[in-house]
Each structure stands twice: as structure tokens, then as C-alpha cells.
């Protein structure tokens, strides 16, 4: 089946004064229309850079997509000119950012900012765009939507801004929305409301969603499939069900064990992953996770494992994957 998005061997590097940072290295994954993909990992693992690479929003210099293909709706985005890629941004593919406080222009009204994608991509007049905007704000459940168009961002709460951000992303009914930690900066109660809303709106519109988060709980609830990233590479790919039932990579297992769960025996201790996230300037040899890994075997320090099929729709990059069901299940 022809997927909506095919990412092949994507590598994005940053050259800094201290040296080269391979923020994303050899990442490949597919996404079907309407599907929700979770991209999980600690901060600094390259998930945001992957997302920005998809939109070709990596600031150059210092960053550069050095290798790979991003085939979206049959076209390789890396081969498009600036004009063509602009036509895709905000139109076919939209993005929701992490920082609702700073991602809006403080001196422009919300209405103008939400209307902008419609004005550029649909050639709408300001008036027409505004009527649609009012409707969009209503769909993201902003009360008194018509009036609120005239407001400035500082008059909105964080949650409201993020709703407006969702409205802005949805404006041109894109085929793919990339949400980069959309709720991390918000209160827990508002997080759930917003994710519910996003899920519902994307399902209604048949929009695919890439949900970037460090929170496995969110992924479990809202995603269909999951890619776990570590030090710029995907270390495990699976459907949500497979991943939770049978996590293979020691890092994934570690992530799961470090999340508090309500349905568990309270006496079970949380087990944080030992050690520090890797320094991308000086990545460890072999498997980047080996200094922190419980299942480490000698080969891990020398050779990097490739992604290999573990079962149907489940791939893992590990020399000594976890076999037994994890203790939590």
C-alpha cells in the first residue's frame, strides 16, 4: 500500500565549534494516511530534529540534512526547491510546536496568525479567511471564537494558545501534522483535553499525526505505532500493542520501568535508567546505549547493531534484546 510518508536513511548533522553533532543518523520509517506515529525518546535523542528535518526547517548553517529521502505524497521533499517546499509547509504538512508561549507573534492578533496559512495557500481574502478562522477556533473549543480572533497572544492562556496552534495547523486540512511535544509545557489536566481534541480532529479529517514525546503513557494512549529513538537513531519500531506487550530493546524496557503507573503494585520501585543521556559530540562506540545497558555483552562496545525484525511489525536494534516478558506485566 502506498504510504503517505516514507523516510529513508535520513541523516541530519550540525557543525558546531566543538565538533560535528550527528543529531539524526540513518533514520527510516513509514507512515500511512490517517495513522498516528509516536516518536519517543529522552530529550536530545533527535526526535525534534527529525521532525524539523521533515519540514526542512533545520537552520542551515549550522544544521544540514546530509543524506536520505523524505518521500511525501510521492515526492522527495529533499529534492524540492524553496518555493515548492513552502507550498507544502502549512498546507499539506503542518506543525504544532512545544512552546505555546513563544510560538506566536506577540504583536499580531491570533486571528491574523491563524488565518495566515489560508491566505497564502488558498489565496483567500482576509475576510473570508477570518470566517473560516472563527469556525476553526470553535472546533478547537475556544469560547467566543469570533471575538477571540481580535485578541493578542498574551491575552490567551497557555492551553488556549495551544488550541489556537492546533487550529492554525488544521487550517488548510493538511495530510500530516507533526506535533512536537505539544503538551509538555501545559498542566496535566489540560494535556489530556488537548490530546483528546487533537486525536479526534485528526481522526475526523483523516490526517496523519506524528506525535513526538518523551512520555510513553501518551504514546500508549494515542499512537498506533511507535519509534523509539536513542542518540539520533531508531532503536525499536513496533505497533503500540507489540511494544507494550513485548518490549525488546533494553532502553525501551528502561523507559517503561521508569514511568510510574497507577495500575501497579505501589511497592514496586521505579527504576530510572542509570547514567546520563549520551553526549552527541562524543558518542559511545558500538551501540550508543551500551554504557547504560543492563544486557550489555562484549560485542555491544565494538559494533553497532542494525534494526532487525523481531516479529511481525516489530524491529529492534540490539545484540542482546530482552526476551522475557518484563516484570511489570
Amino acid at each position, binding site marked *: 500500500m502506498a504510504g503517505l510518508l516514507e523516510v529513508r536513511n535520513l541523516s541530519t548533522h550540525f557543525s558546531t565549534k566543538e565538533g560535528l553533532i550527528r543529531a539524526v543518523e540513518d533514520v527510516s520509517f513509514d507512515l500511512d494516511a490517517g495513522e498516528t506515529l509516536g516518536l519517543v525518546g529522552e530529550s536530545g535523542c533527535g526526535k525534534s530534529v527529525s521532525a524539523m528535518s521533515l519540514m526542512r526547517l533545520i537552520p542551515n548553517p549550522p544544521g544540514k540534512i546530509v543524506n536520505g529521502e523524505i518521500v511525501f505524497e510521492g515526492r522527495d521533499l529533499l529534492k524540492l526547491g524553496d518555493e515548492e517546499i513552502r507550498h507544502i509547509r502549512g498546507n499539506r504538512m503542518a506543525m504544532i510546536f512545544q512552546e505555546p508561549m513563544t510560538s506566536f507573534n506577540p504583536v*499580531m492578533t491570533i486571528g491574523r496568525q491563524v488565518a495566515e496559512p489560508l491566505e497564502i495557500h488558498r489565496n483567500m481574502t482576509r475576510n473570508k479567511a477570518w470566517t473560516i478562522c472563527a469556525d476553526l477556533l470553535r472546533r478547537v473549543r475556544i469560547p467566543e471564537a469570533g471575538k477571540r480572533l481580535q485578541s493578542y497572544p498574551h491575552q490567551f492562556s497557555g492551553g488556549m494558545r495551544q488550541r489556537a496552534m492546533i487550529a492554525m495547523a488544521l487550517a488548510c486540512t493538511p495530510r500530516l501534522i507533526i506535533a512536537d511535544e505539544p503538551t509538555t509545557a501545559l498542566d496535566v489536566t489540560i494535556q489530556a483535553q488537548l490530546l483528546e481534541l487533537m486525536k479526534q480532529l485528526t481522526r475526523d479529517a483523516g490526517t496523519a499525526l506524528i506525535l513526538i514525546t518523551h512520555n510513553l503513557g501518551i504514546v500508549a494512549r494515542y499512537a498506533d505505532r511507535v519509534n523509539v529513538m536513542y542518540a539520533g537513531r531508531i532503536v525499536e519500531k513496533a505497533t503500540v500493542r507489540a511494544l507494550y506487550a513485548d518490549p525488546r530493546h533494553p532502553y525501551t524496557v528502561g523507559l517503561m520501568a521508569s514511568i510510574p503507573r497507577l495500575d501497579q503494585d505501589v511497592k514496586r520501585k521505579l527504576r530510572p535508567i542509570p547514567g546520563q543521556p549520551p553526549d552527541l559530540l562524543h558518542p559511545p562506540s558500538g551501540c550508543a546505549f551500551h554504557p547504560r545497558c543492563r544486557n550489555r555483552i562484549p560485542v555491544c562496545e565494538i559494533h553497532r547493531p542494525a534494526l532487525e525484525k523481531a516479529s511481525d511489525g516489530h524491529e529492534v536494534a540490539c545484540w542482546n534484546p530482552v526476551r522475557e516478558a518484563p516484570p511489570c506485566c
Partner: protein
Amino acid sequence: MKRYITGRLVYTGFILFLVSILIFALARLLPGDPIQAAAMINTDLADKQVIQDLRARFGLDKPLYVQYGIWLRDFITGEWGVSIGSGETVFEMFFNRLPVTLELFAGSVIWSFLIGFPLGIFAALRRNTWLDAVLTTTSIVGVSIPVFWEGIVLIYLFSVVLHLLPPAGFVPFSESPLQNLLSVVMPTFVMGTHGAGLFARYVRSCLLEVMGQDFIRTARAKGLSEKAILITHAAKPAMIPVVTVVGLAWSYVVGGSFLVEYIFAIPGLGRMGVDAVFARDFPVIQATLVLVAMNVLIVNLIVDLLYGYLDPRISLQ
């Protein structure tokens, strides 16, 4: 916004009050009071008794705060005293010279904007290229170059060597519009140089700062072109902080006008001030100080109000 405006007004009034005290104090601290100064010129007054009488008549024997009150009342009612040098009233001198200086102010502000903004914008757009380095260095030179030397170099180049512009003097607009323009080209350019350098540096850094912000990334993600981002998203938030240096640039212009009018022999307020300093013409010096301070304060007030108006975070409070 209302609270903001009243706040700024009260603040300006308060500073104006402090300025008046400062200048009054300076005037009283200056060696020799006005009567003694007058006595030096007019020997008839040298008689001690006459001086005593005059001191009493001008209230100089009263306590300081009463003197201050009288001084303030006189100033508000336009009784700015009489120039010791020329015998004209200072009030008249001021209004005779005002139009010349206003023309210079206007011209130098135009030069500052005309040079400073494009320089800053180009430098920001070509950041970290050789062009940026050249433009940024140029703007530092612009704020470092002493006006008097710049004026002399320009006179040498354009008048002595090239014979293009008159070396000095001022022709009123009513006499000959063309000659008037030619006579103010160099002086206004020199007065505007500091402001231009200041604007260039500020525009560059504000624009760069804004272009690095999250909402610019949002705009890119919406598919806007870099040009559209610069115009619709970056220009306004970058200009709001730039507004705040207008006050500083203005004080360079006002300060520069003193030297520039002196070098170019232009009969404006700056020249009047310098001449008064040379002649120790204290009534004129005093009035000049008050007017300069008022001028700077009012411009700063306008800048603050403009800032409040432009920034919705203030105007919508």
C-alpha cells in the same frame, strides 16, 4: 493604557521638576551671581550700595526656596531674563533662532533614519558575512567619530577641495530654498551620524534577535517566504525596541547641534549656547539648559507613548 499614559506624564513632570532644581542649583553655584556679572560689564553698577539694592530688587537676598519660586515663576511666564552680552531678552533670542535649529534637527533625523535603517537591515540579512562585518564596523565608526572632526573633514573635502558646498554659513529658506538646502546638507549629515550609527547597530541586533525566535519558526512552518516573514512577522517586533533608542539618538542630535552650529557658523540655538558659554552669559546659559532638558524629556515622553501604543502588551492593559 490610560494608566500607562498618566504614569509617563507624572514621571515626566517629576523629572522636569528635578531638572529645574538642578539647573537652579547650578545657576546659583556658578561663580558670581547675575548682578555681579552685570557689574563687571557695566562699571556704574560697581558701587556696593547699588549692588545691594539690585540684589534686593531681584530677590537675591531672600532664602533659596523663595528665590527658586521666583525663578520658576519667571521662567513659566516667559521672563527668561536679559542677555548680558547683547541686551536682548533671552525669550526673543530663543524664538529668533528656533527655526534654524529646528530645520537642522529635522534634517539630521532624516539622515539618521535614511542611513541607519538600511545599514542595520542589510547587516542583519547578511549576518556573519564580510558585508555584515563592514557595515557593523562602519556603524561603530559612526558612533565614535567626533562631530567636530567629521565636520572639518567634510568641509575640507566638499568645500576646500571639491568646491561643491559652502564651507559655512546659513541661508534662510525664505531667501533661497536651494542655497538653504546646500547650506544645511553637511551640518545635518554630521549631526545625524551618531544617530545613524546607533540605529544601524540597534536595528541589526533587534532584527537578529527577533529572527531567532520561536514565532519566526512558526511562520516558516506555515510556508511563508523569508521576505514575507521579514515584513509581516519580524519588522514590527524588531522596531518596537528600536523606538526606545530614538530618545538616545535625539540627545546626540541636540548635543551635536552645539558643536556643529559652531563649526558651520550657523545662527541657531546651539551657537547661542556656545557663545553664551564663552561669554559667561548666565541668563542665556540657564535658559538654554532648561530648554534642552525640556526638549529631551518631551521627546522621551513621545517615544514612551509610541512604545506603549505599538506594543499590545502595554496598550491593551
